[in-house]
């Protein structure tokens, strides 16, 4: 049985009766069992997956109504709450936490009969770009296990790439869906801010983050987006999107479209192989009938500083709730004074989370607020207005997702600023709220390179059409594991 199929191939085979949900789920679990000791995409697995698959097969057999996912196995980043499984955020602070409710995206997937196969590894509380900051140990890149898979949704990228599931949900605060998508050679979408409910996503930086789907094809990403997008009463930042069918007209192509190449994202600091791939992507688009022009976004140079100022500030406030009293790890309160207990319990946050909270407290403190936080907010506005101007001239923007090729595990771990700078090409989408997608485009030295497209707010349809067109020009090898 082939696990390396797309969602549309899977649902077709289930409908034809040539494949049962139970067979596919069992085979998927066998695959996880074989490769995940090496890759460590998962923090926990769904013990009831086979049973749930059997139930869906039963419904199919008696021709009862079955949701559109037809039992497809999906992995979920472990900062998205699930009722029946732990949600650890890859932190010691939540190592035993079971949420009393499902996130809205989980409820929506369950209604459509998706099988949540397991909870995927991440950098602790989604803070990181390599998945090395997980309390449970790093995930590894399926293209070469000595290399990082990107992050923070590293487990999501790995699980999709290594055929341990058909799709995954990650969260993208500064590039956390697109980075692992690029490094693991899968498709990853960061939707418009407000398109997908964040209810049940453990908050890190509310004004910036979005849940986003990862899958092996653009069509599959559009399929999952159809299910999870839309307004939610539980999240007042969600917006009305008119519920378009994102899978419809995917073949519309890019003929006559104008695509801007962001000059700040393709020059200095970008690996030679990545620069060459970007040139190839440009010529692919030109062959498809698009007009490509160079476009400057000079505010992008300040995006990393603005983003880490704002995200750290929001993190220091959001993570104040983890007092280890209502939920947390085993640590008795006996013999402690209140503040002493809280500080002691919270010393179990990992070093990156602690560092971000230190930074957050610093940039918000009296005397520095105007210099950092307020200035970062203004830079954020500037980025948004420059993007609005750009989208008056072009339909889409193009840049490599990651400026460099995947690197070895441990190589940059002692230099947090270097890791922050990896987000230089992705952050503008988060600060401005616009959608962006990473498409697998090339393999260089055995390692994946992803191309990124941006569109104006709520232009997901146009974004997916262009991504689909680019994706179809590629002919990438199978994952080697």
């Amino acid at each position, binding site marked *: 049985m082939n696990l390396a199929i797309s969602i549309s191939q899977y649902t077709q085979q289930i409908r034809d009766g040539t494949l049962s949900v139970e067979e596919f789920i069992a085979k998927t679990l066998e695959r996880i069992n074989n490769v995940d000791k090496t890759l460590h995409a998962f923090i926990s697995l769904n013990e009831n997956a086979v049973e749930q698959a059997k139930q869906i097969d039963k419904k199919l057999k008696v021709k009862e109504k079955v949701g559109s996912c037809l039992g497809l196995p999906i992995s979920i980043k472990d900062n998205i709450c699930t009722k029946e499984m732990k949600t650890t955020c890859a932190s010691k602070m939540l190592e035993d936490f079971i949420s*009393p409710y499902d996130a809205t995206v989980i409820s929506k997937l369950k209604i459509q009969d998706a099988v949540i196969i397991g909870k995927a590894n991440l950098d602790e509380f989604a803070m990181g770009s390599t998945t090395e900051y997980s309390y449970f140990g790093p995930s590894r890149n399926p293209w070469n296990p000595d290399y990082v898979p990107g992050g923070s949704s590293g487990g999501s990228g790995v699980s999709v790439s290594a055929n341990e599931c058909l799709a995954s949900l990650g969260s993208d605060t500064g590039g956390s869906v697109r980075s692992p998508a690029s490094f693991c050679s899968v498709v990853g979408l960061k939707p418009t801010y407000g398109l997908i409910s964040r209810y049940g996503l453990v908050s890190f930086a509310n004004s910036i983050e979005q849940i986003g789907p990862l899958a092996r094809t653009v069509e599959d990403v559009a399929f999952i987006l159809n299910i999870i997008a839309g307004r939610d009463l539980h999240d007042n930042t969600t917006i009305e999107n008119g519920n378009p069918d994102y899978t419809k007209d995917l073949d519309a192509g890019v003929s006559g479209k104008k695509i801007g190449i962001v000059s700040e994202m393709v020059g200095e600091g970008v690996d030679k192989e990545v620069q060459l791939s970007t040139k190839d992507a440009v010529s692919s688009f030109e062959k498809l009938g698009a007009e490509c022009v160079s476009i400057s976004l000079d505010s992008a140079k300040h995006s990393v500083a603005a983003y*880490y100022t704002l995200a750290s500030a929001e993190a220091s406030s959001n993570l104040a709730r983890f007092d280890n*009293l209502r939920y947390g790890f085993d640590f008795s309160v006996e013999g402690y004074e209140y503040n002493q207990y809280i500080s002691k319990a919270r010393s179990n946050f990992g070093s990156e989370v602690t560092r971000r909270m230190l930074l957050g*407290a610093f940039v918000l403190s009296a005397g520095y607020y105007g210099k950092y936080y307020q*200035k*970062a907010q203004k830079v954020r506005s500037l980025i948004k207005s420059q993007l609005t101007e750009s989208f008056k001239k072009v339909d889409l923007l193009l840049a490599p997702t990651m400026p460099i090729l995947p690197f070895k595990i441990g190589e940059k771990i002692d230099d947090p600023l270097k890791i922050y700078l990896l987000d230089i090409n992705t952050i503008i989408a988060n600060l401005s709220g616009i959608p962006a997608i990473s498409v697998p485009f090339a393999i260089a030295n055995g390692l994946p390179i992803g191309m990124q497209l941006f569109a104006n707010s709520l232009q997901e349809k146009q974004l997916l059409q262009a991504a689909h067109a680019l994706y179809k020009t590629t002919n990438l090898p199978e994952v080697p594991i």
Partner: protein
Amino acid sequence: MVDRKEIEHLSDLIKIEIKDPQKYIAQVEQILNYFDRLDKVEITTEDLLRQELSFDQLREDKFVPCDDNLIENLKKTKENFVRAPKMD
């Protein structure tokens, strides 16, 4: 700029006991130095990004029962209370 005292003060604010403040000094200082570039950006606008929410987007203010048993997984409970350490 950043010294041991500063890290200890910040660790107080974020309520995290930091055993080795030394470890964070150089890194936090390096990152803040990088953030300093924000102060040099020329910005003429005073506009800030904000999301506006109109009242008709809010649901009606009425009681909606919650089916989830929100306290069933709580730790350190005693007779429906959460146990907390003593406050001085």
